[in-house]
C-alpha cells in the first residue's frame, strides 16, 4: 500500500514516510552525514567552551606571545599570548549564539508575515511583499554594516542587523509554500469543517511548509555566521575581549607574514562551518522533500 505514494508523483509520497524511514534515508545521504558531522563538532566545541577551555581567553601572557602550535598550545598563541585554541572554542560559541538568535528573529517575524500574506491575499499580501522586496533589495551584509554603523557596534546590534535581513527570506518562502498548500483540497475540507484561517494556518499550512523552512534555516544559519564574522572583522560586531572568529582574522592580518597560523585557523573554521551547514541543508532538503531541487 505504501507504494501508492510512488505512483503518485504530484503528492508527497516520499516525505510521508515514517520517522524510521526518514532516518534511514538521512544516514544514506552523504551531504547530510558530512554536514551533520561538521555541524555536530562545532556545536560540541561550543558547548564544551561554556564550561571548560584549556586556557582563559582573557588572561594575557606577553612573554609567551606568538608561539607556534605545540603540545601546550595546540593552535599556538596570539600577539598577547592568549591561547588560540581556547579563543576558537569561545568564538564558536559566539558565532552560534549570534547566528541562532538572528535566524530566530528572521523566522520569528518572517514566517508569520508570510503566512498572513498567503492567508489574507489582496492588498495586505501586496503591502507585505513590497516591503519585503524593499528589504531584500539591499545586500544583507552591507545593510548590516549600515545598521551597526548607525546604532553602534556590538553583538546585540549585529544580531538585530542580521536578523532583520533574514525576515524577507523567511516571509517569501513561507508565503510561496503556503499559497501552494492553500490550494490543496484538504484545506477546503478544513473549511467545510468550519475552521477559520488562523486555525487552518496553524494546523495545516505550517506543518506542511515546515520542511522547506527547516532547510532554509540551515542555509540562513550559514549566511548569518558569515555575516557575523564579516561584521566582527570590520570591528562592528562582537567587541573585545569576547573572542570572535571574524575579529581574530582582523587582528591576524597585520601579523600575516609573522604568524600566518593566526589567520589560517579562524579562516578554516569559518569555511568548515559554512560548508558543513550548507551540506546539512542540502542533505536535509533531499531527505525531507526530494521534490525540491536547488532553491538558490
Amino acid at each position: 500500500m505504501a507504494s501508492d505514494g510512488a505512483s503518485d508523483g504530484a503528492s508527497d509520497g516520499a516525505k510521508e514516510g515514517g520517522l524510521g524511514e526518514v532516518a534511514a534515508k538521512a544516514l544514506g545521504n552523504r551531504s547530510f552525514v558530512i554536514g551533520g558531522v561538521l555541524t555536530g563538532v562545532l556545536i560540541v566545541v561550543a558547548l564544551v567552551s561554556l564550561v571548560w577551555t584549556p586556557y582563559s581567553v582573557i588572561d594575557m601572557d606577553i612573554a609567551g606571545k606568538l608561539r607556534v602550535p605545540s603540545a601546550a598550545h595546540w593552535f599556538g598563541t596570539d600577539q598577547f599570548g592568549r591561547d588560540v585554541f581556547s579563543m576558537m572554542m569561545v568564538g564558536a560559541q559566539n558565532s552560534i549564539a549570534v547566528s541562532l538568535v538572528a535566524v530566530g528573529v528572521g523566522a520569528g517575524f518572517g514566517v508569520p508575515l508570510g503566512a498572513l500574506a498567503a492567508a489574507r491575499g489582496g492588498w495586505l499580501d501586496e503591502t507585505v511583499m513590497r516591503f519585503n522586496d524593499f528589504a531584500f533589495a539591499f545586500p544583507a551584509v552591507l545593510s548590516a554594516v549600515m545598521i551597526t554603523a548607525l546604532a553602534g557596534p556590538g553583538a546585540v546590534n549585529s544580531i538585530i542587523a542580521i536578523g532583520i535581513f533574514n525576515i524577507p527570506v523567511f516571509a517569501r518562502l513561507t508565503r510561496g509554500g503556503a499559497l501552494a498548500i492553500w490550494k490543496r483540497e484538504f484545506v477546503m475540507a478544513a473549511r467545510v469543517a468550519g475552521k477559520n484561517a488562523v486555525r487552518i494556518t496553524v494546523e495545516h499550512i505550517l506543518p506542511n511548509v515546515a520542511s522547506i523552512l527547516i532547510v532554509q534555516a540551515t542555509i540562513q544559519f550559514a549566511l548569518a555566521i558569515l555575516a557575523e564574522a564579516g561584521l566582527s572583522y570590520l570591528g562592528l560586531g562582537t567587541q573585545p575581549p569576547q573572542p570572535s572568529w571574524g575579529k581574530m582574522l582582523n587582528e591576524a592580518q597585520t601579523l600575516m607574514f609573522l604568524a600566518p597560523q593566526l589567520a589560517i585557523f579562524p579562516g578554516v573554521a569559518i569555511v568548515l562551518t559554512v560548508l558543513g551547514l550548507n551540506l546539512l541543508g542540502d542533505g536535509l532538503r533531499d531527505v525531507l522533500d526530494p521534490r525540491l531541487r536547488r532553491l538558490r
Partner: protein
Amino acid sequence: MTGEPILRLDGLVRDYVLPRRSLLRPAPRFRALHGVSLEVRAGESFGIVGESGCGKSTLARAVLALETPSAGTVEFMGEDLFALSASRLRGMRRHMQMVFQDPYGSLDPRHKVGRIVAEPLDMLEAGLGRRERRRRVAESLGRVRLNGSDADKYPHEFSGGQRQRIAIARALITHPRLIVADEPVSALDVSVQAQVLNLMSDLRRDQGLTYLFISHDLSVVRHVTDRVAVMYLGRIVEQGETAQVFAQPRHPYTRALLDAVPRPDPARFRHRHRVQGEAAATPSEPEGTAPAGGCPFAPRCPEATDRCRAEDPALEPRAGGRLAACHFA
C-alpha cells in the same frame, strides 16, 4: 423516499474578476454561474453534469458557503446561508459536508486518519470527551467498512479507494443531512469506482442522506442519482428525472453529451450528434458567454437557427415534468 426541499438555490450568479489587461479598461470578468436555480429534496440524490469549466465546482463551493455568490441565495434547511452570522453558519455546517475529487489531495498527509476523520467533529461538536470522540471516529470508519484501528495510521498507508472512504467517513461523522460530492470517483480506478458508488448508495439508504452529486461522468450520474441537472457555461440547460433525461434528452446539448459516451455499437456511430469545439467561455468575452443575447449553446449547436442566435431561451417546463432551455425542446 424523497420529501420536502432541503436545499434551494435561487438565481445564483458568481463572477470572477480576472487580471486587468489594460489600465484604462475595467478588469475583465468571467461569469462562472449564470443565474442557477434549483431545488434538492430531502433524501434524494441530485446530479449535476456538464463538461469541465461549466461551473459545477463553483456551484458546490457556493452551496457549502465556501464562496460568496455575486447574486442569488442559497437556502439550506430553510436558512439563507449568506444571511447567517459566522457562528450560526458554523452551526449549519454540521448538517452539510463534502466529499472531494482527489483522495490524495483531500487528506492532510501530516495528520493521522483519526484526526482527519474527527476534524468536523472537533470544530462543530466541540467538547466531546476523548472516549466519545474515539467512539465516534470508530463508528464513522465502520460505516465506510474500515477498521477502528485504522485511525492510528497515516493516509499514505491506504490505497486510493480506501482514502476516499476515509474522506467519506470524515463527511459522515457529524451525521449531516446533505453531502455535496464533487466528482467523488473520477480520480479512482474503474474497479474501485463501483465499490465507492455502491457504498455511497448504501449510506444514503441507511442514513437518510441527501446527495448533491457532481460529475462529468454520465454513466456514474445515471447510476446514483434520482434527478439530474445538465449545466452548460454556468447555466442549467436541462433538468428532470435522471431516467427520463437519459432516455429522452430534450436539449441538444444533453443529446450531444449522451452521444459522446462511447458505446460498443457501430451502427449508432453514424447517427451521433456531434458538437465541435469547446465551450466558448473565453475571458475575451467579458460576459463569459458566447454571442450576447443569443442562446449560449448556439455556436456549437447543430440545430441552431437565427432565432437561437438572437434570443436566449429560458429554462421552462416541457413535456414530462422536464425543464429545458431550448426554443425547440
